[in-house]
Every structure is written in structure tokens, then in C-alpha cells.
């Protein structure tokens, strides 16, 4: 199956000032896949996303989006090439209504009619958002904000959807709901690259996973294989099934 990856990292080294944060990172995400990047605090997960978005500068290596090298391109151009993000802590525009937040997701699109239809689709997927359509973003609960952030990202019709710590700051019940949503969105055809600390949860819905440790990828395999991997069980999966390891600092 010779397909072109939507996103590909090739020997990436990235720095914060003079401190190296990523060492020779290689991975790829194929169309339709749900791939997760796992790792503890300060392992370089967020930096990886920032390098994709052009926020964090790269010293060596190449990033490809659908086969085109995009190193050093400004953020706006990366977004125009079909990258969307559900950022850590969701970052809803607080003083704008739910509807306006969704419209902003489609900021670069000019097909107004289709956008309107897709906003309706988002409302069908998350009926609570329809009820809150004219409420300010700041009035939403954490779970509702997560839905809104997801809807906003989907409205750009992304080639690849980046998710930064989707479980962060949500109650365990909402985490379950959140991962069901991610799985559903992926099943409907959106390619997803997810960064997550909650390894067992992420692997339960992902196709494949990469494990990042202090800036290097130490392991990568199918989600199933990672769930059964001895080292993963010890370091990230907290021994028993379903038990989540808290952040080791």
C-alpha cells in the first residue's frame, strides 16, 4: 500500500534558544489514520506540534505536508495547507459566541453555503452547542468547550487535525466522552495526530503510536502492540489495564 503521508517528520532537531528539545524525530501519519504521540511532561510533545505549526523553529531536518516541504513557512501558510488544531486547554475565543467561534474555524473558506451546512452538521453532532449558539464561549463548561474547539477545527475541513492533550483538565467521565468523539471524527474520515499523556486512553482508539522520551522517539508500533509492550506497561500504562499513570515529574 504505497500512499503518501499527510504529515511526515524527517530527522527533525528543534531548539528553544540554545537548548535542544527534539532529537532526530521521524514519524509519518497516513490519510485516515489516528496516530498518537505519547510521553510524559517535558518529553517534547507540545514542541512537536509547535514545529508543525511553524511556531517553534527547526534546526535540522524536514517536515512534509502531503509531500511538500514546509519548514520555515509562516503559520498562516501551514494553516492554509489544511492543518487545524484543537489546542491544549481548548482556547475558545471567550468573548465571542459559540456560533462566531465556529465561523472563525472556517475563516479561510469562501464557500459560505457549505460552511452553513457544516455548522448545522456540527450542531447535529453536538446538540448542546446548538442550544448555546448565541452564548459567549466563556460561559461554556469544559466539556462543551472541548466540543466547540473540535467543531471549530473541523470547519476548516482539515487535511490533518492536530490535538494537543485532549484529556487535559477534563473529569474522567468527560475524558471518556472526549475520546469517543475523537474516534467518531476519525471514523468519519478526518486524519488525526494526537499528542497525549494518557497513554492507555489514547492507544485504545489510535491506529498507531509513537513514544517520546526526553526529545527522542524510543518506541513506535501499532496501538495494539504498544498496549501489550512490556516497557510501555511499566512506564506508561501503570501496570494494570485501564489504570492511568499520573504524570511523573
Amino acid at each position: 500500500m504505497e500512499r503518501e503521508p499527510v504529515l511526515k517528520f524527517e530527522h527533525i532537531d528543534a531548539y528553544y534558544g540554545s537548548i535542544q528539545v527534539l532529537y532526530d524525530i521521524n514519524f509519518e501519519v497516513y490519510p485516515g489514520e489516528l496516530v498518537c504521540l505519547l510521553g510524559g511532561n517535558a518529553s517534547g510533545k507540545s514542541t512537536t506540534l509547535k514545529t508543525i505549526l511553524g511556531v517553534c523553529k527547526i534546526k535540522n531536518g524536514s517536515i512534509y505536508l502531503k509531500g511538500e516541504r514546509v519548514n520555515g513557512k509562516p503559520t498562516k501558510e501551514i494553516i492554509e495547507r489544511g492543518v487545524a488544531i484543537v489546542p491544549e486547554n481548548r482556547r475558545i475565543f471567550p468573548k465571542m459566541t459559540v456560533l462566531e467561534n465556529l465561523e472563525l474555524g472556517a475563516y479561510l473558506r469562501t464557500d459560505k453555503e457549505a460552511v452553513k451546512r457544516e455548522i448545522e452538521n456540527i450542531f447535529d453532532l453536538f446538540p448542546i452547542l446548538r442550544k448555546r449558539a448565541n452564548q459567549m464561549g466563556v460561559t461554556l463548561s469544559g466539556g462543551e468547550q472541548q466540543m466547540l474547539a473540535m467543531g471549530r477545527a473541523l470547519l476548516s475541513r482539515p487535511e490533518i487535525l492536530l490535538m494537543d492533550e485532549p484529556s487535559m483538565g477534563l473529569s474522567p467521565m468527560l475524558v471518556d466522552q472526549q475520546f469517543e468523539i475523537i474516534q467518531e471524527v476519525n471514523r468519519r474520515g478526518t486524519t488525526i495526530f494526537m499528542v497525549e499523556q494518557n497513554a492507555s486512553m489514547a492507544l485504545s482508539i489510535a491506529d498507531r503510536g509513537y513514544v517520546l522520551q526526553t526529545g527522542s522517539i524510543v518506541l513506535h508500533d501499532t496501538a495494539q502492540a504498544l498496549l501489550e509492550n512490556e516497557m510501555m506497561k511499566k512506564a506508561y500504562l501503570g501496570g494494570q489495564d485501564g489504570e492511568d499513570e499520573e504524570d511523573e515529574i
Partner: protein
Amino acid sequence: MDLFLKELPQQLVNGLTLGGVYALIAIGYTMVYGILGMLNFAHGEIYMIGGFTGWWVLHLLSRNHHVVMNAAAVIALMIIIAMGVSAFVGVLTERFAYRPLRNAPRINLLLSALGVSIFLQNLVLNYQGAKARVFYVHSLIPESVRLIHLGPVVITLTRLIVIVVTFFLMALLSVMIKRTKAGKAMRATAQDLEMATFVGIDVDRIIVLVFIIGSALGGAAGTLVGLLFTQVDYYVGFQAGLKGFTAAVLGGIGSIPGAMLGGVLLGVAESLAVTFLPAAYKDVVAFAILIIILIIKPTGLVGERVPEKV
């Protein structure tokens, strides 16, 4: 008390005139602060340049203190050209004095703004001299319509023009911010600049747009005050800038409706104060309000806090 009640409607009208102008100036401060988190101390000079531009247009269209064309058209041209020139100068300051410092500490931006302020003041001083330029308003507005009686209130036509133009411009801005795509992008950028780039907003262009709008409104205010007080000099921007800034803080800096409210309230407060106190206390009242607001409600009346940027 009788005197107060008799004077009240008149002072309210006077206050609305002044307040509308303060509001126009305050909008420029508040929009720039909302996005860049900086106080643009050069904004008063943008206002001053608007005043001079208005005077210059009037001067060019006058022969022997008589305008050469329809007076309404002259006033419209004065305001529109002043807005254009001020917007242009505002964009230049952003491009050359602020944008290169976007990632520098805030204090550097502040100092740069002070530098621009002094630079523009002295540029105009060298070019125009220190003498005030006089607007020959009576060439624009004939004696017969100079005063309008509305019940207990006497209003000069100039004041009426100022009120109508300021509130028209504010209404226009409100609609633009609320309804248009650019307006939504401006609000989004003010609320979370990085997230705005993540949905594809070109933040640099939004910042330029903010300087265009803020400076144009400041320039309009400069010409309107020139019509009202019939003169302009190189130093008028200092006082007007402080008043606009006070109005912005009073309303809640960063909030556009706040700037409008703060401006109008400040203008009315000043006008009411001079009915009781000698006129020289006008500024004392204005800045006493600023200090009191900073102490008891630092976020201002509307108090729209931009969320902490990560």
C-alpha cells in the same frame, strides 16, 4: 438647584459634544491596547495631525476667508482627508516604530511610542511653527444658522455637526466590529492572538487595520475639535491624548464599547463640573476621575479583561 436644573440640558449637550470627541480618541487607544497590550502614546499626535489636515483643507478651499465651494462639502472633505492622512501616519508608525519591536519587552514599545510622539510634535513644530492656526468657521457656517434653539437648549450648528459625525462614526464602527468578517477577526485577535493565527487569520494585517481605524477616528476627532474650538497648534495632541486615554481607562481599556461609554461620561462629567466650579477646574475633574477609577475599579466600567496570554 434651580440653576442646576435650568443648566442641566444645556450642559448635557455640551458634554455630549466633548464626550463624543473623547470617545473617538479613546477608541484608538483601546483598540491598539486590546491587541498589542501597549499604550500608543503617539495617538495624541495622530489626532493633532488630523486637526492640522482639516485646517489645511479648509485653508486650500478658502479665498479671503470665504470658502470656494459648498460649505457642507468642505466640512465633509476636511473630515475625510484628515481621516485619511491620520490613518496613513498611523500605519507608518506601526510599520516602522512598533512592528520591529513586536517581540521586544513591552517597555521598549512604550518608549518607542513616546519617541514617535515627540518626533511628530517637533516635525509639525518645525514645519508649521508654534503659532496656532485658526479655523475661519464663520466662512463655513452663515450667521443665520449658527445657533439652533431646541426647547431650553441652545446648540451651535458646529456642535450639532460634531455630535452627529462622532455618533455616526461610532455606530459605523460598532456594526463593523460586530458583523463583518474583519470585525470578527479583530475581536478574535484581541482575545487570543496565537489562536487567531491558528484559524488562519493574518494577524499582521489585522494590526494594520486596527491602526488604520484607530488613527482615522483620531484624525476625525482632531478636525472636529478644530471646528469646535476654531484653532489647532502642534501641542494640542498632548492634552487630547490624555483625555482620550482617561476615557479609555474609565470605560475599561481594551473594550470598544467601554471607550465609547468612558468618553461620553468623561465629557458630561467635565461639562457638569464647570456649572458648579470655575472652568479652570475642568481638567482637575477629568484627572480626579482617572485616579479614582484606577484605585477603585482598575478594570474600568465595562471591565472586559482580555484572558491571560500563555
